[in-house]
């Protein structure tokens, strides 16, 4: 889901997918879509020869990020606790 974390901890094999949090295999009740993702993920296991391989799966989520619901109904406790720092990090990144 977030292959960037590979740079922090090093993972043996990663099948990276650009799907929203909470739905890494796909949409509910989309059997074919889920199967396609899983077959590709299995092929990463089958083909990886060396530790640390990150394979970027070619799937595209059908909704734009602003239209994609993945957030919890309430802001999470840790985000609430660090909200000011998070806003500051965002402001710095926009500079």
């Amino acid at each position, binding site marked *: 889901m977030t292959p960037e974390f590979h740079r922090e901890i090093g993972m043996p094999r990663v099948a990276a997918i650009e799907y929203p949090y909470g739905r890494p295999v796909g949409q509910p009740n989309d059997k074919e879509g889920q199967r396609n993702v899983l077959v590709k993920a299995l092929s990463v296991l089958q083909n990886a020869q060396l530790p640390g391989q990150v394979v970027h799966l070619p799937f595209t989520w059908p909704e734009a990020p602003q239209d994609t619901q993945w957030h919890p109904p309430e802001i999470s406790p840790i985000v609430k606790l660090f909200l000011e720092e998070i806003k500051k990090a*965002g402001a710095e990144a926009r500079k």
Partner: protein
Amino acid sequence: MADRAKIVDGFRFMPPSLRAWISKDIPAEEYSGDIPWTPLKKPLSETTFSLVTSAGINLKTDPPFDIEREKREPAWGDPSMREIPSTTTETDIDVNHLHIDTGYIKEDINVMLPLRRFREFEDEGIIGRLAPTCYSFYGFQLDPKILLAETMPKIVSKMQAEHVEAVLLTPA
């Protein structure tokens, strides 16, 4: 669909401020330490799988993950795990996770823990077998000491008893 050059942006769905805050802790350079490695020893069609997710799924007959304590102690995440039998369906489970919308998993467990898809793969001979037990833990772990020292060895021990040879991990 066939965009071969796609590079996954793991933060695509995250608000930009949160992305910036989390990214500050991720190194810019590639990982250079040792990475554990166990080669796949058999074809997939002969391999026994288990599934593990960090989504906070529990059987309704088991206690839920403790999100109430996390609400009181925002840096704490429940370090325990729950066994999820491979025949489990949506009607058997509850999901407690304060960092995602859990509704999709309750609607179709396969979006997170693809039990039904792997049972189909077993029936079709794509994999050898799905082990009787799969697992959920709770992914928010700022300090994973207990998770690593106490919880994961329990999972490993049960996987060894069920002759698991490969695991699909699905992060929430």
